[in-house]
């Protein structure tokens, strides 16, 4: 009866050191960018820049370090749904915060 679960991918994805180091370099660069940008005053745009950079960084971590890139479409979709859901929740809070 357990026969219906044996088509689960168990093949590990071994990534080259070069690639991993490349991702690390990008992450470090983006961290530096965050710090630099935080010193410059864009007004309200500051928070958006910080959020965008942070999202790009976490995407890299998830895609490469956490192997999301090699997962099935279903896993990717569930993950994206989670992110989408979170941003809707936070976004809806602005019905209050932005109009007080």
């Amino acid at each position, binding site marked *: *009866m357990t026969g219906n679960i044996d088509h689960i991918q168990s093949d590990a994805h071994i990534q080259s050191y070069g690639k991993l180091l490349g991702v690390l370099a990008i992450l470090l660069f983006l961290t530096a960018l965050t710090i630099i940008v935080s010193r410059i005053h864009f007004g309200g745009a500051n928070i958006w820049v910080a959020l965008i950079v942070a999202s790009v960084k976490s995407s890299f971590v998830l895609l490469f370090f956490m192997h999301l890139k090699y997962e099935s479409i279903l896993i990717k979709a569930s993950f994206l749904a989670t992110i989408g859901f979170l941003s809707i929740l936070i976004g809806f809070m602005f*019905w*209050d915060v932005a109009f007080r």
Partner: protein
Amino acid sequence: MEIIGKISYMETQATQPIKSFYETPSPSRFTGIGAWLLTIDHKRIGLMYMASVMVWFVIALILGLLIRTELMATGSTIMEAETYNAIFTLHGVIMIFLFVIPAIPAIFGNFLLPIQLGTDDVFFPKLNLLSWYLYMLGGFLAILSLFADGPPDTGWTFYVPFSVSTETNVGLTVTAAFILGMSSMLTGLNFITTVHRMRMPGMKWMEIPLFTWSLYATAWVQLLATPVLSITLLLVILERIFGSGLFDPSKGGDPILYQHLFWMYSHPAVYIMILPGMGVISEIIPVFSRKSIFGYKAIVGSSMAIAVAGSLVWAHHMFTSGMSDVAVFVFSFLTFIVAIPSAIKVFSWVSTMYKGSILMTPPLFFSLCFIYLFSIGGLTGLVLGAAGTNIQVHDTHFVVAHFHFVMFGGTGFAFFAALHFWWPKIFGIMYNFKRAYVAAILTTTGFMLHYIPMFILGIMGMPRRYYDYLPEFQTGNFFAGIGAYILVAGVLVMLLNLLISFKNGETSPSDPWGGTTLEWSIPSPPPLHNFVESPKPKGYPYDFTDIVRSNSLNSNDSLNRGSKL
């Protein structure tokens, strides 16, 4: 090889009856109590939840009765104000986090979801066991707070600034809720993966029974919303220990932010509570109407719609808290939208019964009470969802009556219905019908007498969470108190009747009711691996043609036996 294996297997089957999961521990090396505490069998875990959830339910019921007794007369009747605050907090915390949220998914979901999907266990059996241990740990911490510098007196909502400034042991209870959240998430995770990965080959999405569908929708909410609560509760602890000022305006924080975060989980949580109950009702109504469920796809769709839309209405708990008028408008509007899928379900159940051939049994009786009580709860929810009327009745007993109608009249009664529906499947025995009806009538009557006066008191302006009140509220509170005693008596009769069935209940056949979903095709109680032979997909799960045909040939004698007991 395989053929020989099959033949010898069939021979053993012919010579000796199939052993139930009670007689075959899993893993098999454990015996006695270890066979329960270390089991990875989803059915045993479901039963361990049943035992522990019941204990909490009875404790919280007694606490509730104490609250009610205090309110039966003006002034201090049986306790002081501080005790009252602690008791209603504990009553709420236990009922919500230890009873209503886990009851149906953790007991009946664990037991039945794999069976309804035609498989032998959940996807992560060990995490399943871990979730039970987290549940017990959370419950233990909640009780511990009773003995360590005063139980919390904040109400189950832990609103700041009071939850940060009060001297009582909020930290411990909040930690308990945090751990219980983890337990709930593990159950949700298990159900999602099981539905996706372990459905029997050939079972299509639109062939999944509605109870399992409702658990699937619930599981997404559990998984996505619970972390918000966990983090919010952590923030409360941080605030208490370090005074970081997130919610403190004098430090640039925002107290309303706490309410947003809290309700972002806790409103979806009311759907975690009600969706599985709706799933139970969607199973019971067609079976006893001998008629395919009306609007299968609409019910599936409405479960998913409730899961999504229900996550976007949280701020309707905050209309009077000082948030912006735009938010009041938007969240009031969204609240009205989410009432639509709930109504779709109610209409579908009623339409299923229309021109069905109705067979009255205790599970159906409880389900009918559910439909009635839940409808009142849902409609009064609209009174609360309308921003104008909400201002009048917010934080009065009207709200208390509303959520008891949905949580107790809804989820509670669905839980009772599920107990009576699946009892013969789980234990292989049938209970006495007459006592079950008496219990159901007592419970419903007591329920109405208890909560209807609270609607009126709320409209008259009696605030909630006070141990005393003005003289004009005396009559209503007195009658409500009497209702509460009848209600508790009804629940006790029900539980005793079920317990007595262990002693002198008749054995139940595999399909005592004439159900069509897979659990009714296997022995009662089920064998360890659920199915004796690999189940075959049946296509649409609610086809009663065969049941009706065999019924007209020989009247269903197992049911007649049940009612004669």
